[in-house]
């Protein structure tokens, strides 16, 4: 099902400004991940089933009765997303290793950070899809209204921060002897500054606190997202170089 192969001269000299080329590379990587996932849907289904199982286990682990449910929902959701996210991150990094895909990507004459952003956007998309399915399910199962706009904003911001660090860590972890197992060990201590404001803000929105108070957490979350994304994309090349 190949497109007609373009002539060599078109492939070796990308046209357009370097910014446009940069954005096109990012877009190409995101599209590659989406296309690969659409074929067999392994990653999303694994993340989804795992997330559902985690929610189920929480039902037994914690007393999710009507009284405690409200205070605990935020924590349950984020633990679920963090664990499901780990699966997705590992799988996404492993896909690059499969058949030397990453080696091929490294041959592209573009700044390595384009690879980083491509992977992060792809990973965030997959995590958001899983979250988009879990939220209504949780709402239905526990009779809690989770469609608070503030909560959705926090989930998007928190997911970005988590994946921004996680993509870098997964790229490292997959190149070690311990492989997948090392990812949570590396990721969780370092990503706490993102998870903590996310948790607090989610909880505040669910329990309908004053928006003025919550803005502090949202600002922290945005600040940390920016800090981590910046550092991660600066050091990413050291992680993937040969």
């Amino acid at each position: 099902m190949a497109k007609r192969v373009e002539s060599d001269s078109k492939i070796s000299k990308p046209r357009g400004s370097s910014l446009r080329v940069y954005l096109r590379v990012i877009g190409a990587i995101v599209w590659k991940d989406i296309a690969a996932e659409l074929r067999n849907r392994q990653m999303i289904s694994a993340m989804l089933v795992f997330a559902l199982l985690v929610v189920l286990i929480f039902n037994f682990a914690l007393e999710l009765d009507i009284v405690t449910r409200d205070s605990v929902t935020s924590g349950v959701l984020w633990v679920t997303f963090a664990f499901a996210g780990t699966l997705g991150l590992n799988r996404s990094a492993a896909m690059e290793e499969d058949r030397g895909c990453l080696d091929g990507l490294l041959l592209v004459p573009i700044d390595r950070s384009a690879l980083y952003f491509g992977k992060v956007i792809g990973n965030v998309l997959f995590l958001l899809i899983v979250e988009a399915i879990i939220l209504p399910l949780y709402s239905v199962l526990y009779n809690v209204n989770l469609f608070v706009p503030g909560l959705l904003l926090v989930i998007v911001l928190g997911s970005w921060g988590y994946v921004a660090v996680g993509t870098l860590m997964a790229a490292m972890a997959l190149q070690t002897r311990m492989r997948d197992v090392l990812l949570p060990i590396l990721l969780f201590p370092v990503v706490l500054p993102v998870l903590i404001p996310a948790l607090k803000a989610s909880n505040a929105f669910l329990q309908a606190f004053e928006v003025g108070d919550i803005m502090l957490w949202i600002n922290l979350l945005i600040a940390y997202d920016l800090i981590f994304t910046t550092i991660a994309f600066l050091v990413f090349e050291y992680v993937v170089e040969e």
Partner: protein
Amino acid sequence: MEPMPKQLKILNWLTIALVAAGLYLAIWYAPREAIMGEVQRVFYFHVAAGWVGALAFLVAALSGALFLIRRERRWDRVAMSSVEIGVVFTFINIVSGSIWARPIWNTWWTWDPRLVTATVMALVYLAYIMLRQSVDDPDRRARFAAVYSILGFISVPLTFLSIRIFRSIHPVVFGAGDALSSGMSSPRMQVAFFFSLLTFSFIYGTLLWHRLRLQHLSEKLEIQKMKMLSAEN
């Protein structure tokens, strides 16, 4: 093998002298604290150990960054040695704090911001060590360790800031508050305290030098071994 350099021998003795003086200051010279009693003396070891943990972390992150920029192996050695020392002192910090907390707060542990941050720092250290142990190629190991130490170093203070928004029950030692709740009212206590910071810094420096020397000698030994094995064949 190479003998210990003279400066290191002098440093050894200097550090031992500082430790002896510091012990005297902490245990005899500093007065007994009115409210908490003798257990307050843990303070002179606890804070200094925490300081060394943080210092070691900073040195590791800086050495990591230097390695990434310059690609000289010695920066990686400094980073690794610093982390090894730092993780030990972080645990000393946590355990000594816990020992202090039991009679004073009536609990071994509490989830207040500083304790959580100390735990997170210890976990980042441990993750660093596990990462290093898990990579065989020395260059890759050094690169990954450097990247992780930089991220970890940025992350720990941010964690502290996040949690600190909530009120802490950890004693605020300097500045605000009445003399009853702050622990440093007497000038003799301050002398003992700052001296302990100095002493622990020297302990850190001495240990770091020894560890670097040990690593250097061990690498020389490896090279000798390889030479002998290939000479046999």
